[in-house]
């Protein structure tokens, strides 16, 4: 078949538009459910990924379709085959986008406040200098459940829930902050994503990336032990967090 004819077929085939339409409908549905307040964090993260996948899939579908048509490959003739080819790239883009979107969602959904001029920010400033990194911004998320994570989009940030600050003593909170600073530092030197941020990946939801997470978590814990001279404060923080979630059930 001549290349021009392949390209025309690519454009006029309705089945791809139907697939794309279904995908966008999925994105809209996921976004609508996201507004429901009673969802757990895990469910919200799942919905954000579903939403992103729904948005990226049509782009991936049409670009794969165009590429197949341009190269006059048989893949463009079968909608199902095309969808299968488009899924991996859509998954990849939505995962990468998720690493940026999800932390920003937590920060800018009106549920967090930047922490400035407190003992925490002075502590972070001091230890960032020691580590040779730019002090990350600190955000307090308005959530009674204890959690903390760090991420780096344009500038690093450490995010700590108010619930975490409520239940930990000063030294325990410092241990958590040092742990997150270690993640920020490791990302500054090597281009890899923090284990704590991997908690936001769909792979964590599927529980299939444990080994990588364990190595980075162990390194961050080790850093805390070196700075504080003991593991007891970090251990105390972890015990309290586990206790909280245990009491919740």
């Amino acid at each position, binding site marked *: 078949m001549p290349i021009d004819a392949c390209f025309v077929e690519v454009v006029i085939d309705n089945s791809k538009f139907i697939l794309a339409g279904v995908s966008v409908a999925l994105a809209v549905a996921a976004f609508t459910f996201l507004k429901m307040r009673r969802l757990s964090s895990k469910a919200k993260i799942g919905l954000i990924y579903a939403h992103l996948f729904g948005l990226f899939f049509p782009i991936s579908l049409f670009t794969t379709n165009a590429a197949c048509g341009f190269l006059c490959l048989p893949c463009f003739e079968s909608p199902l085959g095309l969808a299968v080819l488009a899924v991996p790239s859509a998954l990849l883009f939505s995962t990468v986008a998720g690493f940026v979107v999800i932390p920003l969602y937590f920060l800018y959904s009106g549920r967090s*406040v930047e922490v400035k001029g407190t003992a925490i920010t002075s502590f972070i400033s001091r230890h960032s200098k020691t580590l040779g990194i730019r002090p990350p911004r600190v955000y307090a998320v308005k959530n*009674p*459940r204890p959690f903390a994570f760090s991420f780096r989009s344009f500038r690093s940030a450490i995010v700590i829930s108010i*619930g975490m*600050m409520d239940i930990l003593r000063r030294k325990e909170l410092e241990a958590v902050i040092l742990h997150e600073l270690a993640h920020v530092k490791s990302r500054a030197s090597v281009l890899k994503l923090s284990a704590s941020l991997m908690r936001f990946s769909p792979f964590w939801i599927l529980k299939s990336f444990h080994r990588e997470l364990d190595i980075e978590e162990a390194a961050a814990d080790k850093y805390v032990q070196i700075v504080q001279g003991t593991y007891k404060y970090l251990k105390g923080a972890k015990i309290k967090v586990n206790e*909280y979630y245990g*009491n919740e059930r």
Partner: protein
Amino acid sequence: MVMIEKIRLHKKGYESVLSPQESAILGVLWNSREARVRDIYRILRKRNKIALTSVAVCLDRLYKKGMVMRQAETGPGGVHYIYSPLKSKADLDRSIVENIVDKIIYNFGESAVSYFNERFSKSRRAKRRGI
């Protein structure tokens, strides 16, 4: 609006609708007007063995039940929630009763309404007779 999901008929007072820890925490908040998680924990641990995390979980439950409110406040040590009771003791009593009675009427309809009428008529008669 106060949300009551279950009632323990064998218990008295607030413990019929709240756990002992939740009742104790409300008591502390009515006395102190507002408090952080740690402040409430310090008061309660003098009376009974209780974990800080239990206090935090109970406060969140009370918040979801519409019995306390919370505000985030930035201090030298970071950001903390300040909890305060949403209603006075008297108002809370009324809200709980309203909630429970409404649910009974919703579930049992006519039977519930006629029982309440009979019961209140008996009480009024007894009051008039000075019993």
